[in-house]
């Protein structure tokens, strides 16, 4: 399968998705932009032939997720308050609470939750993308969900 021929086509097709994932992980718009830009540059310079559209999407998400994890470890920018980050988007007040609660989770749980609930990946696919074992994905999903529920009920309802 041929990848997108031009930058505009690729960014229009995958930009929102990668930005959403990066922003929810990094909680900072400038860092999220960096992560997405590096992902696309890598896409145009190093990406292989993809077997299908799902393969291409998974490759991009893997690259972006890995980059975000690198950046979390070596973060230089200050983290922005999640409420402030979400204010710039058309997220309704009634929905922003759940996102704020998600962004307050530890990144180990947050990344798994984003891939499962937001990007709708299956557990074994998430294990492939993140490099974590299937049992660990299940565990973090289970705990992440409980943490999110508790936090959302206590602080945002």
């Amino acid at each position, binding site marked *: 399968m041929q990848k997108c021929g031009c930058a505009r086509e690729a960014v229009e097709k995958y930009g929102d998705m990668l930005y959403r994932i990066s922003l929810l992980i990094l909680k900072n718009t400038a860092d999220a*932009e960096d992560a997405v830009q590096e992902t696309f*540059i890598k896409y145009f310079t190093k990406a292989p032939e993809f077997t299908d559209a799902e393969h291409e999407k998974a490759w991009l998400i893997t690259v972006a997720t890995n980059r975000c994890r690198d950046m979390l470890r070596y973060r230089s920018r200050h983290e922005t308050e999640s409420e402030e980050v979400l204010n710039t988007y058309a997220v309704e007040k009634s929905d922003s609470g759940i996102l704020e609660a998600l962004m307050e989770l530890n990144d180990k749980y947050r990344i798994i939750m984003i891939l499962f609930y937001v990007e709708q990946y299956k557990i074994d696919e998430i294990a492939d993308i993140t490099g974590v*074992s299937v049992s660990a994905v299940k*565990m973090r999903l289970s705990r992440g969900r409980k943490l999110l529920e508790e936090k959302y009920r206590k602080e945002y309802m």
Partner: protein
Amino acid sequence: MDKKLRNAAEKITMPEDMKERIIKACENIDKTNIERIDNDGYTEVVSGTERISSRNNIIRVVSAAAACAVLAAGIGTTGVLLHKNHRSQLADSDIVDSNEQLTSPFGDFTKVDFNFYLFDENYDGFSDETYAELADFFNSFDWGEEYENAEGREFQQDSLTRYGAINWEDDKGKNSITIETDGFISYKRYILSGETENLSMDLAFTKYYMIDFEAFDKGIKEIIGNDGSESAAEAGISPFGDFTAFDFDLQSGVWNYNKRTSAAIYTGLADFLNTFDWGEPVEDTSGRGDEIVVTDYAYNISWEENRVVSWLYIADDGFVSYSANKYSEDYLTSEEVERRSYSIDYEAFDKGLQNILAQDVYISQEEADRLLSGSFVLSELTDSNNVRIEPDRAEAKEMLNEFLRDGFIYMLKRSVPDNASEGYNLKYSVMLEFKTDDGQRHTENFTIYENGVVSSSEYMGTGNDLLPYTADNYSINIEEFESRLRGILGDDEFNTGNTAELGERCETDGWEYVIKSVDVTKSGDGMDVFPEGHYACDENGDLIGDSSYIIADIALTNNTDTDRSLYMNSTRVDLYNYNGDELDFKNSMEATAYIFNGDRSVYEADYFKTDFKAGESRTFRVGYVIDDEYLDKSFDTIRIEINHSGMAEANENIRYYRLGEKKSLNDIAKQG
């Protein structure tokens, strides 16, 4: 919540100006840079690889566990290992080029981007320098000749003897070496075949080797022992593995913390156990680790993964015993796979854990749901003599049911008590009965001790055949529990904000009262004016006959910034039963307060009028006379009413002080 989360997240879109910046950055990539970068050979592996650099910047991290799964399964929609575009010594189907000097049977590891994964360490994040050393080690290691006696043996992911794996790619396919602890080596070569749009990874061949495992392991340990990359501890993982990935149980005395604990606390425990300084393993010279005595530990943590059950015992002198046993599929037999000992700072460990556990105040909603599962049938409350506490009034009965079902459960706390129930008397018992969907009886029985410890036991069954199901321990604020019960069984009026207890400040109309103490006495000591009429007293003011004084020690403050006067007879004492009915024990004259102050001038004024400057405080002893027959009757409350309006009817400015001895709840419930 799932849909809500997804719907909310989908509203996040990349701003247009950001898109334009990224598009421009991509369009500006220099084509010559692309070729150079391609020659360096970067590769992204979908199965969790971070950036893999060229042979000049050796691989950082690849998740071999996922990689192995991918290799075993072939190409999935997300599982393709992407090969880089540079020349490899491992070309075509011939691994060995006889015309080249190869340093290992598998090729020159310094010329390939490989990853190395140790299974039991669950770790693969080695530094570039370590990878360089590993490449040299693999090249120079004596892998021996091909092993002919494999007898169909294949590597199993959960094998007891699994040790590690080496994986790499080349132009034509992928390679995987698995190493087992008996020295058995399995080398699999996969070839990429098919058309571009229908690629598949086919197993080309498998070769086996048998190595000196001890020499291999020793070499590996020497290399990774010097690994400058982030250690497991620095990566936030314990020497026993990643507790955030385990479904572990933590037991401390009678307390058991497991997945039923609130998620926030459980996560906190996992993070603490991951980041705690366990130190290096120590030699168990005392032999305590061999057969640790059941009672010899302060904490016990256990978890299971892939039929390997791990145990961590922590004694209060800091000795730690870790062991792992692998069980057979039917869990009937097991063999020990690991045992280590540590010596930790127990005080730091205990304090750290307790700080987290202390935050776990109330039980989680999930646990409450479990305790209350089924349709509610009935509740019972008994006292320390096993006598049922049951109000006669239907309304109070309903309120009690509701409290025991909906209020009491949510008062239960998970905190570790200072003492267990031993040495403390039983105070109350609560039983809740439910009917499950399949018609079974589900009862929860709570024994509440004086110190607030609550022991619970769950029973399930049909008819009278109830079998014990689970048991647990909680704690409760016993004063709060009793206060809530009194509010249900007693007069609600006493639970309003208008009623104060002895010693509490009570303010009304700018006057602050504090009634510090109350005495019931026949002595008229200090009295200025003796009662007349109905109540007889002698020359000292001591009451004779069947009546007594109730004397209150009152501190009174003018809480305004103006001088004011107060008629001191604007307080009176009343008796009420548990229904809130006032006992008619007096006529209005005798209810008037008497001042025990030594200041006769008060008595010479109208209605004991007393002047207070702004902010002035005075202390008085105020007395009331009551017939003994009323003091002997069962009653709930004596109270002092502060009513400056002089009106007989209650109004919002009236305040009350609750005095007198409260009867037992059972006695109160039986009255009326």
